[in-house]
């Protein structure tokens, strides 16, 4: 049992996206077990995965970690064959503190990037008038308190202060001295949400957990739009710089799971996540001083479900091996499949190890691959058709300190 405590949080690679632009690399231990951690708990990363489990810990703990997430994407064009995206590597980070105030009360803080995405294509690529790059990152700061109602039952709740920033670039179909104009939008904003969790040990071997992370609505105002390479004919249509607003709704997620120790060394868990992506129904860029430039794209995302399984075997008191898998359903409908979010159903396979360096310090390591099924679709608004296929590589490391 004690071994559960030293989940070396394997850095969940931020590449692994759970539907839409959610990334599930919020703790290495969790990632290496397929992201199924709601019913496992007792680590500092429970601040994120299930605040109800925080107070089930026996000690205070700190976890820091980061992941390297590299997503390769190909687009099969009806015109030009395979076109490769140039997605930058992402390095999502996370840090958690779970601090014991009394035996029953823990307070904590989580900092992480639960929603993040960067799909980048060559500036000249054939879909340039739809998107050259869409980058979004969120930082969630989540102060949290957890209360142990009794030996078997913990509840927790946190408030999320979110900071978000995004960047969008696309080409403008006007030809002058350059063969197309260029639009770039940069903006940031904030949003608020909360995180609620319940954790219950139904016997010595088993536990269940449920966690609700609310939607966070990033209201972004007064962003900078710039237009370059615009022929003077269109100087009024596309002013060199102006302000714009947008809104990005990061959806709510409900996770419910069950974990069971078949032997003291073997822990298994299954979990179901429900992500309310229907909140992401459109992505609109509003220009209050220049309504003609407004971009409204329907996204029509659907709520999506992800199933996760994970296992851990403790070879010695100091050494665990973990594996996991997840099957994640696409939230973007086929007729809204766009190059800035070329989503598909995907399978995550992950593995990792935890090693206890000494009484207080432990480390987690994770590797994972996420394989997107090839998917054919249209971005109907633009009449951009084709197939997409992506793969993500996830590598992560985390350090845990217990005191």
């Amino acid at each position, binding site marked *: 049992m004690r071994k559960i405590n030293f989940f070396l949080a394997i850095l969940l690679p931020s590449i692994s996206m759970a539907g839409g632009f959610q990334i599930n690399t919020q703790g290495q231990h969790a990632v290496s077990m397929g992201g199924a951690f709601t019913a496992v708990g007792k680590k500092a990363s429970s601040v994120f995965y299930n605040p109800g489990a925080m107070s089930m810990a026996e000690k205070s703990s700190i976890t820091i970690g980061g992941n390297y997430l590299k997503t390769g994407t190909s687009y099969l064009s009806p015109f030009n064959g395979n076109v490769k995206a140039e997605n930058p590597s992402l390095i999502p980070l996370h840090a958690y503190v779970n601090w014991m105030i009394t035996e029953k009360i823990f307070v904590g803080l989580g900092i992480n990037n639960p929603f993040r995405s960067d799909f980048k294509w060559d500036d000249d690529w054939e879909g340039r008038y739809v998107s050259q790059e869409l980058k979004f990152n969120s930082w969630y700061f989540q102060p949290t308190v957890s209360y142990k109602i009794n030996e078997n039952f913990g509840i927790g709740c946190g408030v999320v202060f979110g900071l978000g920033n995004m960047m969008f670039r696309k080409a403008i179909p006007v030809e002058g001295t350059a063969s197309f104009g260029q639009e770039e939008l940069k903006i940031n904003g904030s949003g608020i949400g909360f995180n609620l969790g319940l954790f219950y040990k139904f016997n010595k071997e088993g536990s269940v957990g449920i966690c609700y992370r609310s939607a966070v609505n990033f209201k972004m105002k007064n962003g900078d739009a710039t237009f370059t390479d615009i*022929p003077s*004919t269109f100087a009024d249509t596309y002013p060199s710089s102006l302000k714009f607003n947008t809104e990005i709704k990061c959806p709510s997620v409900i996770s419910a799971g069950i974990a069971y120790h078949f032997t003291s060394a073997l822990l298994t868990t299954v979990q179901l996540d429900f992500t309310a992506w229907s909140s992401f129904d459109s992505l609109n860029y509003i220009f209050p001083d220049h309504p003609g430039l407004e971009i409204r794209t329907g996204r029509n995302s659907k709520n999506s479900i992800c199933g996760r399984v994970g296992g851990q075997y403790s070879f010695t008191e100091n*050494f665990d091996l973990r594996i996991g898998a997840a099957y994640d359903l696409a939230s973007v409908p086929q007729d809204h499949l766009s190059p800035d979010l070329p989503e598909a159903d995907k399978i995550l396979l992950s593995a990792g190890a935890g090693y206890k360096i000494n009484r207080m310090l432990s480390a987690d390591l994770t590797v994972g691959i996420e394989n997107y099924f090839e998917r054919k679709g249209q971005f109907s608004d633009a009449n951009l058709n084709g197939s997409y*296929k992506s793969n993500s590589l996830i590598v992560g490391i985390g350090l845990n300190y217990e005191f």
Partner: protein
Amino acid sequence: MNSDMKQTKKILAPLFLLVFICSCKTNIEEPKITSGSADLSNYLAVGGSFTAGYMDGALYLEGQQNSFPLILSKSFTDVATQNFKQPLVNPGVGIGLDSNSKLILINKAFCYGSALTPVNAAASGDASDYTWIGSQGPYNNIGVPGLRIYEINNQLLGNPQAGNSYYARFVKMQDNDHTILSDITEFNATFFTYWMGMDDLLPYALSGGTADNDPIVNSNFITTFDTYIDLMFKTLCADNAKGAVGNIPDVLDFPYFTAIPYDGVVLTEEEASQINSILAASFPQLQYHEGNNPFVIDDPSAPNGKRFIASNEYVLMNVPLDSVKCFHLGSYDLQNGRLLSLPDQYVIDGAEGGLIRQRRIEFSAKLKEIADEKDLAFVDIYDLVRHLDSGIKFNGVAYSLEFLHGNAFSLDGIHTTAKGNALIANEFIKAINVQYGASLREADVNAYPGIIFP
């Protein structure tokens, strides 16, 4: 600890390997590209101005390099080596059917202010483009700007004085013997595209219906047309060549006839009522109101010989806009107290438009008939232009019939841009794929040039 490490390595090493192998490969298997039952190894393009790559009012090098047959041949390279040879003119301003240079777009000052206006790039076209290059043939693209159907077996067509200068420049020998049909026979194409007929309708249309002697005015012209089409396709299909036939779009949809609205006379409420009171006695049929009003033309059957034009009548793009906007050509000039009707040459009236449309229908019906008879791909360009009328999107770029901003039509308002040619090539590809069970790839339309703005 040592053994822990070993175990870790043993288990994780293959996993890492797997991860790297899987992560690098995202290539999607590409569908097999075939030409089906068509042999595309020796492609010949037959036609008029559109086939030649005529655009912006002239035949010039960049236009030819973006002709729809050239774009088509690029798609054919996926299945058969193409050495698609065109009779290219010199780099430069080119030369138009009116001997002028190609058009470029500038901001030009008018009496009413500055406006984006196509103007000739040079004082005249480059006549050296007519230099004979026939010895360098044979050419895969024998599109001849202005070619009319009844000229296909005209032995004088290649004569620099008596014929068509565009054909004379690449005819095999300037010996008054070679014709379009003899070129076709000698070429032995395995595959051809045939798209012409616009050049039969346009001279009459561009005259504003004043060219009363144009052969298409003759009510029996379709008999002539049918005869020549039969002859043409007998020649084209002599060696069982396969091919694609384009039908005829409604040329009155082209921006040249639609850029200036029939009701382009804009008046204030005050001006309208002033004019109305002046005209009430002699021209009660001319009732002006605030906003857009139709132009006035001469019509002997109307009271006192003048009437408004109707919404199915067209003002040509070459109407002098200075006179229209500042001197009230086509409406009432309050300052000088004159009612100025638009000269006949600038207007396609209902009857003239009806004739052009009737001929289009007849031509297209014959082309459809011959395509069916010879099992050729039939390319519905009429339909493409109808779709452009309501607007289409290609990878985020809007295409329409709008002049200057619709991306599809060049500065002359009649011939398509390179982008427009790619749209046309794609219609040919779709039809070829259907007819011959081929799977050729369409062109990336946005990759081709459009109108260059100042």
